[in-house]
C-alpha cells in the first residue's frame, strides 16, 4: 500500500484552486496510476478524501468531487466490485442536487454509467434513481455551456445505454427532456439534444405511447429551429457546420411519424418564404420526411405538395439561362437549387405514392392546358422565354415521372405520348401509315418544337429508366404499355429525327431542331440491346446518317460537332455494354468481307465505323482532295476522332488514328494553318498522354507512327506541298524525332531501314550523284546550281525526316550503310540543309568507337567517320594560312572552280563543322580541336585574302566581299552552336553522349587562344568577329569557371561590349554578356576583379543605360550599376557624380521598369556619401 502522505499531497494540489491546469492533470494521473496498480484502494481514497467531499466550502467540495469523478473516468477499464459502484453512483446521484458542486457529480455519473459490462456496470434501479434525480434537480438551461453539454451527454448516455430502465419513466422523462432542451442555442449542445430526441423517438415508437401526447409540445420546441440559421456571421468560428446541424435537425424531424401532423404544415408554410435557402431546405426536409413517414401520413398533403412543387418549377421557376451551354442541354436553362430539390421531392412522392400522386399530376389542369396549347408554339424562335421555361419545367416533370418507376412511366405514356406523336405528325395506333417512312421524307413546314423537345426528353428518361442498374432482373419491357407504344413509332421517330438533319433544314448553323434531332437519334441508339426501342435496320440507318454527317457535312460546324459527340457517346456506350448491342448481330456479315482486314482494328464500335461505307472511303481516298480538308471542320475533326479512338480501350485504334492522320497529312492538301497544331496535338496525345505512360511507354504507338509516315511518303510521288509550309515540316520533324527517340534500338533499326529504303529510291540519290560528281567545269557548275534549286519538296521532306531519325537514334542502334548516310548528309549539308548538319553531329556523337563482330565494309565506326568527314569534303583550312592540318588538308581550289559562289558553300560548311564539332566535343573527342582551329582560321582569314588566287568574275567582287564577311560571321556564330544547348538535337532526349563539364573544358582551351588573337590583330573586322566568338563562349560557360578567370576576362568582355554596341543585330549577345558581367558583380569572389576595373566597367555600363534597341539591356545595366555601389567606398567614390548624372538621364527613360531601377540605383549611389542627391 502506498504511503498516504505521498498521494494526499496530490489531492491537495488538485483541490488547491491556485495550481495550474498541468499540475492538476499530473496529480490526477499520479493518483490514477496508484489506483490502477492496486497500490491504493478506492475505499481508502474515499475515506481519506472525506473532508474534501463533504466540506461546506463549496469550492473545495466541488474540486474534491471532480477529482473523484476524474479518477473514475481514468479507471473506466479497471474492474470495480458492485458494492463500490453502488455506493459511488449513490453518492453522485445525491450530489446532483448540489448545484454548487455539480460538474463533478455529472462527470462521475457519466463515467460510471458509461462503463462496459465486463468491468462492472450500474444496476437498473440505480439508473432509475439517477434519472429521477436528474429530472428533479437539474435545471439544464440555467447552467453554463460546458455543464449543459455534460448534462446532454448524460441524458444521451442514459437513453442510449439503459433504454429499459428509463422507458418506465414515460411522461416524466419526456417532460424533463422538453424542459432541458427548450431554448438551447449552442450548436454543439443542439447536436446533442437533436440526438436525444431521435433516441427518444426510437424509444416510444407506438402511436399511443407517451410520446404521442407530447409530440406537439416537443415539436413546438424543435420547430423553431427551422431553417437552421447561424447568427454568428463566420461559420469557421464554430466547430459544428451549418450543414451538419441542418442534417441532424432533418433526421430529428423524420425520426417519428408522430411529428408528421406538425412538421408537414410547418415545412409547407416555410415554402412560401422569400429566402431561397429556406425553400431549398424545406424541399429537402419534405423529401426526406416523405421517405420516412410513409405514404398514409403524406396522402392528406398530396394536393398541397403538388401545388407547391408546381409553383416552384412550373408557375414561377427560378432558372438561369446559361449562355455557354446553348441548346445542348435543357434548352440552355440551368435549374436553381430550389428546382433541383423540388424535383427530388417530386420523385420521392411519385415513388412512394404508388400511383395516386402521378394521377394528380396527369390530371392537373394547368399541365393539360399547356400540353394542348403546344400547337401555338411551333417555331422555336417564336417561343417567348417564359413559355420556353415552362416547356423545360414540364419536360423535367414528365421525365421525373417516367424515370421513377415502370408503372408511372406507363401512365405518362398513356396520357401524353399519343398527343405528342400527333403533334409530330405520327400515329401511334397505325404506325405503318406514317408518311415519314418514305426515304426522302421532309417535315411539312415547321415541326412542332415543343413536342419535339418533350419527345426527346421522354426518350432520354426512358433510356435512363431501362439503364438504371436497380432494375435487375430486367422486367419485360417489350410487353409494357410504353414499350409497345415506343416500339411502334420508333422507326417513324428515327426518320423524323433524321429528316431534321437533312441539309435543307439544317442550314441554320445554331439550330435547336438540329440539336434535338441529333439528341433524339443518340437516345434511340443507346438503349441497351435486349430492351431495344429500335429495330436493327433503324439502328443501322441512324448510325449511317450520323456517319454521313461526320464525313460530308464538315462545313456545318454546329451539326458536325453534335453528330461527332453523339457518335462518341454511342461508341462509348457500345464499349460499355459490348454484348448488349445490336452491333453483335450486325458485325459478322460485314466483317466476312472486310476490305483491308489488316488495317481495321477489332474494337466493336470502331469496326462498325470502318464498315460504314463512307469512312473507309475517306481513309483511302488517295490523292483526291477530300471534303474534310475544306473549311473549318478540319481542326475539329482530328481532335474528336483522335479522342474517339484514344478514348477506346484498344491500342490498335491509336495506331489507326496515326495512320489516318498520316494519310491525310500527306495525301490531302495540308496547306491549312491548323495542320502544324494538329501534329503537336498528335504528339501530345501519343507521346505524352496518360495512355503512353500507362502502357509503360509502349513503343508500339511511336513505331507505328513513324513507319506509317514513311509508308505514305513512299507511296506518294506527287507531293504537292507548298514550299512555304515550313511550319508543317518542322512540326512533323519534331514528331518524328520524338517518336524515334522513344523507341528501343530494335524499333529504331526498323524505322531507319525503312527510311533508308525510301531514300535510296528517291530522287535524292540522283541529285547527290550529280553534285558530287567530279566535273570541275564551269558549265556543269551552272547546271548544278540549277539542280540545287530543284531540290524538290518531296526530297526535302525525305531528307529532313531522315535527318530527324538519325538525330534521335540511340547510340547502340546499328546503322546499316553508314558510309552512304554520312556521304549523303555531307552533300545535303553543303546545300545549306541544317538538319543534315545536326544529323552529322549526332552521328559522330553516337557512333561506336569500334565495330564489334564482323566488320562489314559499309559499316562505320567513329574514327572512320571522322576521317571521312575531314578528307572527303569541301571545307578545310585555307591555303597559306598559319595553321596546317597536315593529313586532313584538302584541295580547296577544286571547290572554288566548280561553283560560282564558293563562299556561300563555305558558310554552309562552317555551320556543318559547328554541329560536327559540337557532337565531338560532347563526347570528348580530340578532333574537335582541328575543327576549332579551322573555324578560327576562317575568322581571321581577312588578312589573307590578298594572297588567295582570285578567280572571280570582276562584277562579283563586291558581292563577294559581303559574302566573305558573312563567312567570318558564321564562323564566329559556330561557337554559339558549339557552346549552347540545342532543343532540336544533341540533348538527353535524343540520347546524346554527354561528357560532364564539356563546356568548361572547351571554354578553358578556346578562351586563351581567342584572347591572344585579340592582342595580335588590329583589323576592326577581325576583332569584331573575335569579340563575337568570345561573347558566345563566355555567355554559355558556367559562371564558376568564369569567376576564377574574372580578372582576365573583364577587360575582354568590356571590349566585346564596346565593339558590339554599334550593330543592332547584336542585342541578344550584348544581353548575354551583360548577364555574365552581372553574375560576376553579384558574386563575392568576382567583386575583387570588378573593383580593379571599376572605372571602365562603370563607363561601359553607363553607355549601355542608353542602349536604344532593347529594354532589358538598359534595365540590367542600371541594375549592375546599383550592384557596383556595394563595392569598397574608395574605389567607387570618384565615379559617383558620373553615375548619378547617368541615372538622371535614365530617370527619363521611356520604359517604366528602367525608371524604377534608376530610382533605386540613384538612391544606392546617393547614400554612399550622404542622403543628398545633389552633386
Amino acid at each position, binding site marked *: 500500500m502506498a504511503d498516504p502522505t505521498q498521494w494526499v499531497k496530490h489531492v491537495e494540489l488538485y483541490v488547491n484552486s491556485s495550481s495550474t491546469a498541468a499540475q492538476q492533470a499530473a496529480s490526477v494521473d499520479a493518483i490514477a496510476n496508484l489506483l490502477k496498480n492496486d497500490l491504493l484502494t478506492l475505499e481508502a481514497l474515499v475515506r481519506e478524501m472525506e473532508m474534501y467531499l463533504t466540506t461546506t466550502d463549496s469550492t473545495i467540495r466541488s474540486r474534491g468531487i471532480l477529482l473523484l469523478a476524474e479518477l473514475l473516468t481514468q479507471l473506466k477499464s479497471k474492474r470495480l466490485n458492485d458494492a463500490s459502484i453502488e455506493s459511488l453512483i449513490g453518492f453522485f446521484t445525491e450530489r446532483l442536487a448540489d448545484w454548487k458542486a455539480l460538474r463533478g457529480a455529472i462527470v462521475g455519473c457519466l463515467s460510471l454509467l458509461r462503463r462496459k459490462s465486463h468491468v462492472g456496470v450500474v444496476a437498473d434501479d440505480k439508473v432509475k434513481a439517477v434519472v429521477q434525480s436528474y429530472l428533479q434537480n437539474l435545471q439544464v438551461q440555467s447552467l453554463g455551456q460546458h455543464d449543459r453539454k455534460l448534462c446532454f451527454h448524460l441524458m444521451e448516455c442514459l437513453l442510449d445505454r439503459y433504454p429499459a430502465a428509463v422507458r418506465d419513466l414515460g411522461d416524466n422523462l419526456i417532460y424533463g427532456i422538453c424542459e432541458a432542451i427548450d431554448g438551447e442555442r449552442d450548436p454543439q449542445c443542439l447536436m446533442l439534444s437533436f440526438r436525444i430526441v431521435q433516441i427518444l423517438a426510437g424509444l416510444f415508437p407506438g402511436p399511443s405511447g407517451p410520446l404521442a401526447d407530447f409530440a406537439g409540445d416537443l415539436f413546438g420546441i424543435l420547430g423553431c429551429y427551422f431553417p437552421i440559421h447561424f447568427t454568428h456571421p463566420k461559420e469557421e468560428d464554430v466547430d459544428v457546420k451549418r450543414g451538419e446541424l441542418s442534417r441532424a435537425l432533418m433526421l430529428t424531424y423524420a425520426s417519428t411519424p408522430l411529428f408528421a401532423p406538425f412538421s408537414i404544415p410547418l415545412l409547407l408554410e416555410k415554402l412560401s418564404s422569400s429566402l431561397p435557402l429556406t425553400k431549398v431546405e424545406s424541399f429537402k426536409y419534405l423529401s426526406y420526411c416523405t421517405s420516412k413517414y410513409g405514404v398514409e401520413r403524406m396522402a392528406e398533403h398530396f394536393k398541397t405538395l403538388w401545388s407547391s412543387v408546381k409553383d416552384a418549377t412550373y408557375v414561377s421557376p427560378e432558372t438561369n439561362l446559361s449562355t455557354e451551354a446553348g441548346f445542348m442541354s435543357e434548352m440552355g436553362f440551368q435549374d436553381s437549387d430550389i428546382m433541383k430539390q423540388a424535383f427530388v421531392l417530386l420523385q420521392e412522392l411519385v415513388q412512394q405514392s404508388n400511383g395516386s400522386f402521378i394521377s394528380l399530376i396527369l390530371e392537373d389542369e394547368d399541365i393539360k392546358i399547356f400540353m394542348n396549347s403546344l400547337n401555338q408554339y411551333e417555331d422555336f424562335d417564336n417561343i417567348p422565354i417564359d413559355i420556353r421555361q415552362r416547356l423545360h419545367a414540364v419536360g423535367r416533370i414528365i421525365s421525373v415521372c417516367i424515370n421513377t418507376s415502370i408503372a408511372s412511366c406507363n401512365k405518362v405514356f398513356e396520357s401524353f405520348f399519343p398527343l405528342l406523336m400527333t403533334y409530330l405528325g405520327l400515329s401511334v395506333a397505325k404506325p405503318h401509315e406514317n408518311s415519314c417512312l418514305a426515304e426522302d421524307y421532309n417535315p411539312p413546314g415547321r415541326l412542332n418544337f415543343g413536342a419535339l423537345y418533350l419527345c426527346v426528353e421522354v426518350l432520354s428518361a426512358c433510356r435512363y429508366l431501362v439503364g438504371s442498374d436497380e432494375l435487375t432482373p430486367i422486367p419485360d419491357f417489350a410487353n409494357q404499355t410504353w414499350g409497345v407504344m415506343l416500339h411502334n413509332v420508333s422507326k417513324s421517330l428515327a426518320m423524323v429525327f433524321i429528316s431534321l438533319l437533312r441539309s435543307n433544314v439544317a442550314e441554320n448553323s445554331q439550330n435547336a431542331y438540329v440539336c434535338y434531332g441529333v439528341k433524339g437519334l443518340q437516345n434511340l441508339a443507346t438503349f441497351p440491346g435486349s430492351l431495344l426501342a429500335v429495330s436493327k435496320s433503324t439502328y443501322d440507318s441512324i448510325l449511317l446518317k450520323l456517319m454521313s454527317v461526320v464525313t460530308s457535312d464538315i462545313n456545318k460546324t454546329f451539326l458536325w460537332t453534335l453528330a461527332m459527340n453523339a457518335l462518341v457517346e454511342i461508341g462509348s456506350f457500345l464499349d460499355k455494354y459490348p454484348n448488349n448491342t445490336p452491333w453483335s448481330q450486325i458485325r459478322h456479315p460485314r466483317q466476312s468481307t472486310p476490305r483491308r482486314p489488316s488495317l481495321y482494328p477489332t474494337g466493336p464500335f470502331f469496326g462498325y465505323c470502318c464498315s460504314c461505307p463512307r469512312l473507309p472511303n475517306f481513309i483511302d481516298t488517295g490523292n483526291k482532295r477530300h471534303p474534310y480538308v475544306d473549311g473549318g471542320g478540319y481542326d475539329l475533326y482530328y481532335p474528336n476522332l483522335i479522342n474517339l479512338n484514344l478514348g477506346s480501350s484498344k491500342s490498335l485504334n491509336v495506331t489507326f488514328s496515326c495512320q489516318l492522320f498520316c494519310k491525310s497529312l500527306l495525301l490531302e492538301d495540308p496547306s491549312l494553318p491548323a495542320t502544324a497544331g494538329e501534329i503537336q496535338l498528335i504528339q501530345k496525345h501519343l507521346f505524352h498522354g496518360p495512355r503512353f505512360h500507362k502502357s509503360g511507354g509502349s513503343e508500339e504507338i511511336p513505331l507505328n507512327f513513324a513507319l506509317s509516315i514513311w509508308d505514305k511518303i513512299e507511296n506518294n510521288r506527287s507531293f504537292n506541298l507548298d514550299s512555304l509550309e515550313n511550319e508543317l515540316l518542322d512540326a512533323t520533324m519534331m514528331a518524328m524525332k520524338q517518336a524515334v527517340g522513344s523507341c528501343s534500338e530494335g524499333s529504331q533499326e526498323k524505322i531507319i531501314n525503312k527510311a533508308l529504303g525510301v531514300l535510296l529510291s528517291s530522287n535524292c540519290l540522283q541529285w547527290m550523284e550529280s553534285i558530287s560528281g567530279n566535273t570541275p567545269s564551269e558549265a556543269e557548275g551552272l547546271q548544278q546550281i540549277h539542280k540545287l534549286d530543284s531540290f524538290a519538296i518531296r526530297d526535302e521532306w525525305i531528307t529532313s525526316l531522315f535527318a530527324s531519325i538519325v538525330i534521335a537514334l540511340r547510340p547502340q542502334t546499328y546503322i546499316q550503310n553508314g558510309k552512304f548516310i554520312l556521304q549523303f548528309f555531307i552533300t545535303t549539308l553543303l546545300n545549306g540543309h541544317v538538319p543534315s548538319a545536326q544529323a552529322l553531329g549526332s552521328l559522330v556523337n553516337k557512333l561506336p568507337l569500334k565495330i564489334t563482330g564482323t566488320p562489314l565494309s559499309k559499316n562505320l565506326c567513329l574514327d572512320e567517320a571522322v576521317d571521312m568527314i575531314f578528307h572527303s569534303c569541301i571545307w578545310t583550312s585555307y591555303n597559306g594560312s598559319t595553321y596546317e592540318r597536315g593529313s586532313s588538308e584538302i584541295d580547296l581550289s577544286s571547290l572554288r572552280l566548280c561553283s560560282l559562289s564558293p563562299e556561300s558553300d563555305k558558310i554552309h560548311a562552317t555551320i556543318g563543322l559547328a554541329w560536327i564539332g559540337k557532337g565531338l566535343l560532347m563526347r570528348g573527342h580530340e578532333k574537335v580541336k582541328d575543327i576549332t582551329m579551322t573555324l578560327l582560321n576562317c575568322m581571321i582569314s581577312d588578312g589573307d585574302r590578298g594572297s588567295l588566287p582570285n578567280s572571280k568574275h570582276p562584277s562579283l567582287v563586291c558581292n563577294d566581299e559581303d559574302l566573305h564577311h558573312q563567312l567570318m560571321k558564321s564562323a564566329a556564330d559556330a561557337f554559339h552552336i558549339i557552346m549552347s544547348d540545342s532543343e532540336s538535337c544533341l540533348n538527353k532526349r535524343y540520347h546524346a553522349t554527354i561528357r560532364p563539364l564539356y563546356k568548361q573544358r572547351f571554354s578553358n582551351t578556346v578562351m586563351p587562344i581567342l584572347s591572344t588573337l585579340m592582342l595580335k590583330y588590329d583589323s576592326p573586322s577581325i576583332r569584331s568577329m573575335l569579340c563575337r566568338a568570345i561573347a558566345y563562349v563566355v555567355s554559355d560557360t558556367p559562371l564558376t569557371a568564369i569567376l576564377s578567370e574574372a580578372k582576365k576576362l573583364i577587360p575582354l568582355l568590356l571590349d566585346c561590349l564596346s565593339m558590339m554596341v554599334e550593330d543592332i543585330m547584336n542585342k541578344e549577345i550584348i544581353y548575354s554578356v551583360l548577364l555574365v558581367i552581372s553574375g560576376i558583380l553579384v558574386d563575392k569572389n568576382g567583386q575583387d576583379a570588378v573593383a580593379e576595373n571599376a572605372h571602365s566597367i562603370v563607363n561601359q555600363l553607363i553607355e549601355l543605360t542608353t542602349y536604344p534597341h532593347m529594354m532589358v539591356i538598359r534595365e540590367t545595366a542600371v541594375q549592375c550599376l546599383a550592384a557596383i555601389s556595394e563595392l569598397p567606398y574608395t574605389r567607387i567614390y570618384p565615379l559617383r557624380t558620373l553615375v548619378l548624372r547617368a541615372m*538622371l*538621364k535614365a*530617370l*527619363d527613360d521611356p520604359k*517604366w521598369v528602367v525608371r524604377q531601377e534608376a*530610382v533605386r540605383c*540613384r538612391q544606392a549611389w546617393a547614400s554612399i556619401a550622404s542622403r543628398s542627391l545633389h552633386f
Partner: protein
Amino acid sequence: MQRKNVIRFKGRLKTRGRERERDRDRDREVEMTLGLINANPVVHAKKERVARTEEPHDDDAIDPLEIYEYVRDIRDPEHPYSLEQLSVLSEESITVDEKLGRILITFTPTIQHCSMATVIGLCLREKLKDCFHPHFKVDIKVAPGSHADEESVNKQLNDKERVAAALEIPNLRQLVDECLYSSEL
C-alpha cells in the same frame, strides 16, 4: 594654448549639440503625448498593389499610378501610418502631363488646421525630386477646401526659395527624412 581653447570650444559645441538633441527629443515626446494636432486619425486600409505586367508595352509613359507608387508609402509626420492609409493621397489626386513635363499632386490634410500640411508637402516635393527627372515641374497643392489656410500653404509649398530655406532647417530636414526613409510602417 589657443589651439587647446579651440578644441575645448569644439567639445563644448558638441555637448551643446547633444543637449539640443535631447531637448528636441523631449519636446517631441511631449508633443507625441499631449500636442498631437489630430490625435485620433481615421486609418484606411492599404490598397492592393497592382502588379505591372511584365510584357513590354508600346506606351510606357509616366502615369499617375507610377507616381502614386512612389509617394503612397511616405509616412505621416505624426502617426506611424502611410499617407495612403490616412487617405491623404490617392491615385486620383495625381495628374501628370508628360508632354508639358508637369506633375500636379493634390493632397488632403486629415484636419482643417493641420500644421503638418506643409511638412507633408515638403516630403512629397523631396520624394518626387528623387524619383523624377528634374525637367518635370512639380506642383503640390492641398485639396480645395480641405485646409483652413489653403492659399498660404499652397504658396509656401510652390515657392522654390522657401522650400529650399525650409530644408536648410536641420530639425525640419530630419523630420522630412524620417518620413521619407522610415521603415516604421
